[in-house]
């Protein structure tokens, strides 16, 4: 029997969770967001990255929660932690350069990895006001790598986002708003940027020089052509490695029996 699950044994959320877990390397300090990334990080911890350190934005340093927290302010976060404190600590630690990897989300993304979580339409007269940036730009400014998990629709993968909440590889230089490589703006604070977008259709990465998005792998059941149709910008599909690796049976068992048995973030198929 293959260690990889067959198509009827896993759902899309399982696939995204496992793809996200594979972005984590052992011994890294990882800044966790609420939701599916939390399951992904804990999955990595239980498989290939047992010594990763987990920071919860609300104030937990190296938490080892025995039960899945539902948000980063949750009482569950700090169980087994090295220290429970507050946001001044977590953001100072991030700005100081301790964070290797952060997981984030977004409503819209452009080809340079600029992400919008603030509003749809003109900021001054929005069709819809969303949550606002939260810590998205901070983690994206301070971490060496960030990984975004997003629903993939043509209206979300756009030429220009309505509002840049979180900085990608080519960002706006104020006061004029001219696009420049983020290296030029961040100076000594430059450490990296978005390293992957894991969407419901594929995994995307960025060319470090021109900052443009390219398709790395596509999820089973779709094709690079179909994914291009779901992007408003021209997507580089020339570097595609093939299909996204599917979950293993061990990973599925950990997700559904150990990490999220109550299906808080990941439904069972």
């Amino acid at each position, binding site marked *: 029997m293959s260690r990889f699950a067959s198509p009827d044994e896993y759902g899309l959320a399982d696939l995204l969770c496992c793809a996200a877990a594979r972005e984590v390397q052992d011994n890294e300090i990882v800044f966790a967001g609420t939701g599916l990334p939390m399951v992904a990080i804990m999955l990595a911890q239980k498989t290939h990255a047992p010594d990763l350190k987990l920071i919860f934005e609300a104030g937990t340093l190296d938490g080892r929660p025995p039960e899945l927290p539902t948000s980063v302010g949750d009482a569950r976060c700090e169980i087994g932690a090295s220290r429970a404190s507050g946001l001044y600590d977590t953001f100072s630690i991030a700005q100081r350069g301790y964070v290797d990897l952060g997981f984030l989300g977004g409503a819209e993304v452009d080809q340079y990895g600029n992400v919008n979580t603030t509003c749809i339409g003109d900021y001054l007269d929005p069709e819809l006001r969303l949550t606002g*940036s939260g810590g998205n730009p901070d983690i994206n400014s301070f971490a060496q790598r960030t990984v975004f998990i997003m629903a993939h629709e043509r209206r979300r993968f756009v030429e220009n986002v309505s509002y840049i909440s979180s900085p990608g590889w080519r960002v706006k230089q104020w006061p004029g708003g001219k696009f420049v490589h983020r290296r030029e703006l961040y100076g000594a604070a430059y450490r990296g940027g978005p390293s992957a977008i894991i969407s419901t259709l594929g995994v995307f990465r960025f060319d470090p020089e021109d900052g443009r998005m390219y398709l790395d792998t596509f999820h089973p059941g779709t094709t690079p052509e179909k994914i291009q149709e779901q992007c408003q910008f021209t997507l580089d599909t020339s570097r595609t490695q093939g299909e996204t690796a599917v979950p293993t049976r061990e990973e599925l068992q950990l997700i559904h029996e150990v990490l999220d048995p109550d299906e808080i973030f990941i439904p069972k198929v």
Partner: protein
Amino acid sequence: MEKDKRISVQQAAEVIKNGSSLTFSGFTIWRRPFSVVCELIRQRRKGLHLIEVNGGPHTEFLVGAGCVDIWESCWVGHELYGKYGANLSRKVAEKKILVEDYSHAEMVFRFAAAAAGAPYAVTQTSLGTDIHNPKYDMLGKAGLRDGKRIPKSKYVFTDDPFFDAGQQVMVPAVKVDVALLSVQQVGEEGTVRVNGQYYSDPEAARTADITIVVAEEIVPEEYLRRNADQNTIPGFEVDYIVECPYGAHPSGMFGRYDVDGPFLKKFYSETRTQEGFDAFAKEWIHGRDQISYLEKLGWSRMLKLRANSAMNYCPRERKRGN
């Protein structure tokens, strides 16, 4: 003996005036001072300027009730119980509220600067984003930058003059009239012991001109002073104390009770329209006090949320069983 700091929920709300700038303890859906928030709505407070590290359902209560003119923060929502702040969204679309967006770290650093008595903080966060777009300086556009409560600029760019580390952004200290905190324990003289993550509560208390602490219980000051290293906020930073058990429901309180997820889900789905919010306020806020609010919630619901005192949260196993 110092003056007695003890006041009621009603008196706590009366300390907060029309037009006050106000901040809160907690983080998104944890440790929010709902009992006093509901009383502010009952007292029909107007023109509040909320300055928050992050918002949550308490923001939505006050915004939905029309108490807020300005919201300065970075995020509002209900975590997994509601995608965004639908009341704030509605008021933004109707142009009935001014929103000034900063990033999360910028808000934390603005509070830290204020708490240290500094006029501004300097950081490298969020460079290149629309948070720094000069066209989106909403308080400036409204002509409100008086250099008193509202800083003369939203931010100022500067180059590191000491180590040539490149561009920095200076963000102004916050000016907060009242901090309203919801915590587990406060002593008779105001010493606060927060259990669990303390979020940005120490900065909020130190920053505000007046700090009101709403606690699950008021305990003998001497009890807290036996282990001063476990205390979070010194008593002299606290002006008023209120004892109000379950005063943070429907948000959660480490060691005491979990977030009431179904309550928040229902609030989010039913208050997307003004009519929906008004119906909610009529049912849960107006004509009530804390006791009748808790009576309406009922014992079975509260027991389901009660934390295990060894684990500090309510294990899901037990939550399902009850």
